[in-house]
């Protein structure tokens, strides 16, 4: 029997690397994402000279705050082995809904909770379909995608400007730290990342998310609350969709029903690049944040180069392919039973 004995002789550096890679094979894809991010940043700096300026890096975060929030929600869903295609249109729907309510004079302290609740409601619907009606997550969230987009068009067919002070404050306020700056939207995004990471790593709910992704049947037989957890991850993703709607509305100063078309795929790409396995069971919220930074950096490099934005998608596509292959290899290796 191959029991690893704990009280081994003093470990050498090599042993430590081996123990680490055996224990934490699942962080390797995330480490790879970090390496890629660093290479991209250094390469961009070498090419453009002014890429690594605090100003540019701050913008990197702030331009993609909504994406980061969506990626956190998506990570929960994907780690259970599900998928949520609805997030882009949920973001558009809550954005346009909020803008229209503000335009008609509804106070902001009602509007924001309504936006969040709207996102959570669509998430709940998807979760219930998945859990209690046994609908494939792909199909259930596709229904959510159409529903969200349809509702967005019902609210308005054209863009609605937002002139509400508190909402604009979210984007226009700049807290300066030296040459760095951050807006309340950026702070919200980072707070969501932190909250997501803590929930995943340090709560029983978070561990149940991982257990379901490992084996749903096992999780059920272990007596974990599988049904509640599976619904909740979609609620969280929907909630993140609603919040992203708020952030994007603040960022662009308007609600627009055609926002976020295809964003769900960007989000999934960021999450996978950040090291989350599409089949579930492995992944980190912080990894997804790295994934968003990789996406954002490529986006920014492309615009620095003045090239077509479609190149972003080509490069992201190639990276995605690379990461999926790398993940397969790592999973195949670490799952080999000794």
């Amino acid at each position, binding site marked *: *029997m*191959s*029991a*690893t*004995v*704990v*009280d081994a002789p003093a470990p050498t550096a090599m042993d430590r690397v081996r*123990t680490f890679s*055996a*224990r934490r*094979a*699942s962080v390797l894809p995330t480490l790879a994402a970090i390496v890629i991010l660093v290479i991209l940043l250094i390469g961009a700096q070498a090419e453009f000279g002014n890429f690594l300026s605090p100003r540019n890096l701050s913008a990197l975060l702030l331009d993609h705050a909504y994406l980061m929030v969506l990626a956190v929600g998506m990570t929960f869903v994907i780690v259970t082995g599900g998928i949520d295609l609805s997030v882009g249109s949920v973001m558009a729907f809550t954005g346009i809904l909020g803008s229209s309510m503000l335009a008609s004079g509804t106070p902001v302290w009602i509007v924001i909770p309504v936006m969040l609740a709207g996102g959570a409601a669509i998430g709940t619907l998807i979760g219930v379909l998945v859990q209690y009606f046994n609908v494939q997550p792909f199909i259930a969230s596709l229904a959510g995608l159409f529903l969200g987009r349809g509702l967005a068009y019902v609210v308005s067919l054209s863009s609605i400007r937002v002139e509400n002070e508190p909402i604009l404050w979210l984007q226009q306020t700049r807290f300066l730290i030296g040459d760095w700056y951050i807006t309340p939207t950026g702070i919200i995004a980072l707070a969501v990342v932190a909250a997501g990471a*803590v929930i995943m*790593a*340090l*709560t*029983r709910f978070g*561990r*149940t998310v*991982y*257990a379901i*992704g*490992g*084996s749903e*049947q*096992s*999780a*059920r*037989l*272990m*007596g*974990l*609350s599988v049904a509640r957890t599976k619904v909740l991850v979609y609620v969280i993703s929907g909630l993140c969709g609603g919040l992203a709607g708020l952030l994007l509305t603040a960022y662009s100063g308007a609600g627009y029903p055609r926002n976020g078309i295809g964003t769900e795929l960007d989000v999934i790409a960021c999450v996978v690049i950040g090291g989350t396995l599409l089949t579930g*069971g*492995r992944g980190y919220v912080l990894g997804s944040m790295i994934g968003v930074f990789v996406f954002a950096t490529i986006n920014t490099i492309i615009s620095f180069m003045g090239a077509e934005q479609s190149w972003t998608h080509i490069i992201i596509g190639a990276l995605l392919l690379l990461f999926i292959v790398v993940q397969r290899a790592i999973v195949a290796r*670490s*799952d080999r*039973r*000794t």
Partner: protein
Amino acid sequence: MTVDTDVPPLVSMRGITIAFPGVLALDGVDFFLRPGEVHSLMGENGAGKSTLIKALTGVYAIDSGTIAVAGEERRFDSTADAQAAGISTVYQEVNLCANLSVGENVMLGHEPRGRLGIDWSAVHREAAEYLASLGLHLDTRSPLAQHSIAIQQLVAISRAMVLEAKVLILDEPTSSLDRGEVEQLFTVMRALRERGVAILFVSHFLDQVYEISDRITVLRNGRLIGEHLVAELPREALVTEMIGRELDELSAISDAADRDIDRTGTPVLRAAGVGKKGVLEPADLEVFEGEVVGLAGLLGSGRTELVRLLYGADKADAGSIEMHGEPAKVHAPRHAIDRRIAFSSENRRSEGVVADLTVAENMVLGVQAQRGWVRRLSKAEQDAIVTEYMEALGVRPADPHVPIGTLSGGNQQKVLLARWLAMQPELLILDEPTRGIDVGAKADIQRKVAELAAKGLSVVFISSELEEVLRITQRVAVLRDRRKIGELDPTSVDLDGLVDFIAHADHDERSVSR
């Protein structure tokens, strides 16, 4: 019925009845489990063992009857309910999460929490303590997937300890363990019995049942046949109770297999120096017409690896294969099928049955694949195949249109055997065809193999049950540590001799005189 009334039962199941569409899976069964005993639940596949266990663990709702735990009547609507009542289960396919660490699997759902959420160092410390109490010293931070099934099973038992289980159900825990691992499991079981845990044990290995159990309850066709103390139940009586008919059959099979094989001609299969680096050292194997060659050895000794090379499921990097004296390139299962070699994998569930298809569809799958999908089998051809093999192998239930997933393991195995036989193979490779199936179905399969061999089919037969290997083969090749170490004549060696050879044979090639 001998019911010991000294100790009040911890679990009392009375008059349990569960009906599935068309089947009465359990019919008024009583079952009692006392603290500090190992109680084996015996019966053929389809006898109702799994159903009874699932009733006790809250997976199935009972239609009538009562379940009482520690004198208190309970109703289990989910596994969580059963666990709350102190009933934990370790299944044959370990139900843990391979993506998580050993420690987390032990503690999942019961992690110690500090002010900031789960306290991971406490999780691993406590997990290590629970594991150590079962004599296991593992790196609790290592992923579960890196450990063998045996270790995973012990981890699952440790988890039951975390739940403070008073009742531990072990459903076929030993079917994929080797001898040493079984010993380790038994040591743990004895320790738990000492602590007063009531253990419900299910195994198809009679030796193990007699070694570890205090009491045996026998089910047949969903009914209770009897409850006995082990000491008062001779094996023959147990088997008779399980099967419901006297079993002279096994000795009949043995007699049928006891024939001389003409090894003067060209063998059906000759493998010379077939091997693969890191998988199997080059090995020779010959199989003659009508011969059943057994492969014996411990798990991981290279048995499965050898046949996978012969079948082309893995590609050999050394050696050559001849069929009927002609060189044959077998680099993929397709080549093997073209040469009429059929291979039934040991992984019945993942590499064999297609659970959602019906019995009939599963049976004709092989023939259809062989013909190519363009030339579909006609309905009449399909029916002919299905009727023939349903009958010949005694598949139960005798309805070819139910999904195969609803059949018991033994019957699924019969359907798989039918699938390969329908392809009219010249060489049939069976990898653990009788693992995890009941005595009756085992006998059926062994008899069928012996019959087919007598008619000229060549068979390579792998089994961990050495008695079975000795019973139906005419030659046994023994492997150890990914190397073929010799061949034996089953008529000239008994079980102990074979065990001895597997364990101790020196490294010289030993061959039996023919």
